């Protein structure tokens, strides 16, 4: 029983760590996937965020205040992410960054909303900006925004009259699949096979057989990186010779590395890419490689521009008022002229969704090539 008392005493020490905040700093809390399945994407984001913060601090901070950055690990687990956001909010931050996993964001965004803290996330699931939360903002196109672009490409670029959809059965995959199927219906393209697969699924023989049986003109593949690689290998093996179309993940460098030559020929739509033919992105890429010795992915770009968006908007409102920040970021447009750190001209709408140009890409000989640039949807605020 004595032991229990001791436990609680330790608990007290662990839980009640107050944070004194110096007057000349502004705190940004980064709640992100540092371990678990999402460690790769989370660390890309984290590294880029750190790089941006350092640059800004070196240049005098935001409105003269130094950014104090604290990281919290979600362990890629929604429950933990909620605890992490709670812990981050206990520090009374100006803005929250992250997380990337949609399932985590959905669990914790309510907390930030209740605390009135703006939260800039890396998630793509459509539902996040559809719950009427005035404090949540994206850094990348939502599924609702990217699927129309992809659908147009399938209709106009590929000329497909029928498609198969293979998706991973979690909120990411399901969200993408739902948005995609709606766009197909709108364009009169028939979805002839609608196949779910498990997270961590290893054997895709049955899935490929089902696609072959349906004989579509193209297949849309919306899986996580490893499962994408496993699928591509099986598809290559069974000689599935229709265009395989994907979103950002399918064309990711990791997939190319894991799938090898089976990834060649995969086409799709990419929201952000370190290979984008823009001088600002190229410069960012070089800086990142110099500092971390790896090529940044789209998650790095998202984290980097999130920090610069905080700087730009704060300077526009001229103070550190969270409500004013959230109001100002809605319907804001930040161009490279306003702030070069934004890397690519970006607009936010009333719901917190972003709009910007995006790219068509293809995997050629183990490399992602940008083959076209798509204009913004231009929905914005009016």
């Amino acid at each position, binding site marked *: 029983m004595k032991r229990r008392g001791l436990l609680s005493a330790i608990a007290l020490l662990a839980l009640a760590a107050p944070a004194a905040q110096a007057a000349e700093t502004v705190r940004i809390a980064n709640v992100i996937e540092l*371990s*678990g*399945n999402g*460690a*790769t994407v989370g660390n890309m984001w984290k590294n880029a965020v750190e790089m941006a913060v350092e640059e800004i601090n070196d240049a005098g901070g935001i409105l003269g205040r130094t950014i104090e950055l604290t990281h919290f690990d979600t362990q890629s687990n929604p429950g933990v992410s909620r605890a992490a956001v709670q812990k981050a909010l206990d520090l009374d931050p100006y803005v929250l960054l992250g997380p990337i996993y949609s399932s985590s964001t959905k669990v914790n965004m309510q907390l930030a909303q209740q605390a009135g803290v703006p939260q800039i996330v890396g998630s793509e699931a459509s539902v996040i900006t559809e719950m009427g939360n005035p404090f949540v903002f994206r850094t990348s196109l939502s599924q609702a925004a990217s699927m129309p672009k992809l659908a147009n490409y399938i209709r106009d670029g590929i000329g497909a009259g029928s498609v198969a959809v293979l998706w991973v*059965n979690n909120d990411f995959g399901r969200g993408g699949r739902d948005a995609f199927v709606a766009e197909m219906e709108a364009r009169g393209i028939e979805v002839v096979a609608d*196949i*779910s*697969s*498990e997270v*961590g*699924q*290893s*054997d895709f*023989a*049955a*899935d490929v*057989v*089902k696609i*072959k*049986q349906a004989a579509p003109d193209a297949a849309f593949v919306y899986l996580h*990186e*490893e499962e994408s*690689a*496993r699928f591509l*290998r099986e598809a290559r*093996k*069974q*000689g599935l010779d229709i265009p395989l179309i994907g979103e950002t993940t399918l064309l990711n460098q*990791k997939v190319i*590395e*894991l799938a*090898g*030559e089976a990834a060649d020929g995969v086409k799709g739509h990419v929201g952000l890419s370190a290979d984008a033919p823009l001088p600002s992105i190229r410069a960012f890429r070089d800086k990142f490689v110099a500092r971390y010795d790896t090529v940044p992915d789209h998650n790095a770009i998202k984290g980097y521009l999130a920090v610069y968006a905080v700087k730009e908007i704060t300077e526009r409102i001229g103070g550190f008022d969270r409500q004013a920040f959230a109001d100002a970021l809605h319907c804001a447009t930040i161009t490279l002229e306003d702030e070069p750190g934004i890397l690519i001209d970006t607009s936010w709408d009333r719901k917190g969704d972003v709009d910007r140009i995006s790219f068509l890409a293809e995997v050629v000989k183990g490399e992602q090539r940008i083959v076209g640039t798509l204009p913004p949807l231009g929905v914005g605020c009016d």
Partner: protein
Amino acid sequence: MSNVLQLLLAGLATGAIYALVAAGFALLWQTSRAINFAQGEFVMLPAFFVLAGTEWLGLPFWVAALLGLLLALLLLGLLFKRVIIDPLLPQGVLPVVIATIAVGILLKESVKEFYSAEAQPFPALTPGGNIDVLGAVLSLQDVAVLAVAGLAILAMQLFLGRTRLGRMMQATAQNPEVAEILGIPTRRMVLYTFLLNAALVTLASILISPVYLAKFDNGETLGLVAFIAAIVGGFNQVRGAIAGGFLVGVVDNFGAAYVSSDYRTGILLLLLIAVILLRPEGLWGRAEERTV
């Protein structure tokens, strides 16, 4: 038709791996009444031994594979028996179940922490390329998996049935008390089955990782499916477990293709529950004598 054949062949290739893992599982049960809930993680781990050998130490693949086998024999065979099973088995089956669950978590999290949380590409055993079997496609890797796993199962059966040592191990499994009376060093025989299991999971690991990539959480599904295979086939007979492995591989593929991909895992689980309730000794198992 070629689709059916395709599913069958793919199911058999995966099933061959399950059979290896399930056979080791059944061996452990037979000789020591030890249930290994970490068997899936046992399959996941050796691939990382090999990767550590090639990536960190710069060893050639085959040397690294040998090193992986040695480490597996040591850690997953000897140490596992001495540290986990020997002290806990006298307390009953349940503590062993719980302890091996903990071992599974330990292995999984250790790989994640000390190697990587990401899936890793793993060197293939064969050159890329496919062969055509009556309209169905088999990759050379699949052929290699089937051939190597088949040979390993055959070799194991020959070893158990045709060598004196193998028969002593069988005797220990079938009736340890009598084996003891005949002077068979039963404790050493039990240790050998742990080593054999370690060798089987290493082989499975090296066969499966080129296709499925090496990842810390691969064991979750693999272990579950191997359990199902062992129980459905027959827990107390290596032959039953092997047959169960192939059956489960095939059922999984056909179930996903023709029944439901949403409930893909559910189909296997229902099969498992049905077998446990209706024929607990397994489809090809031997009914264990029960004393009242």
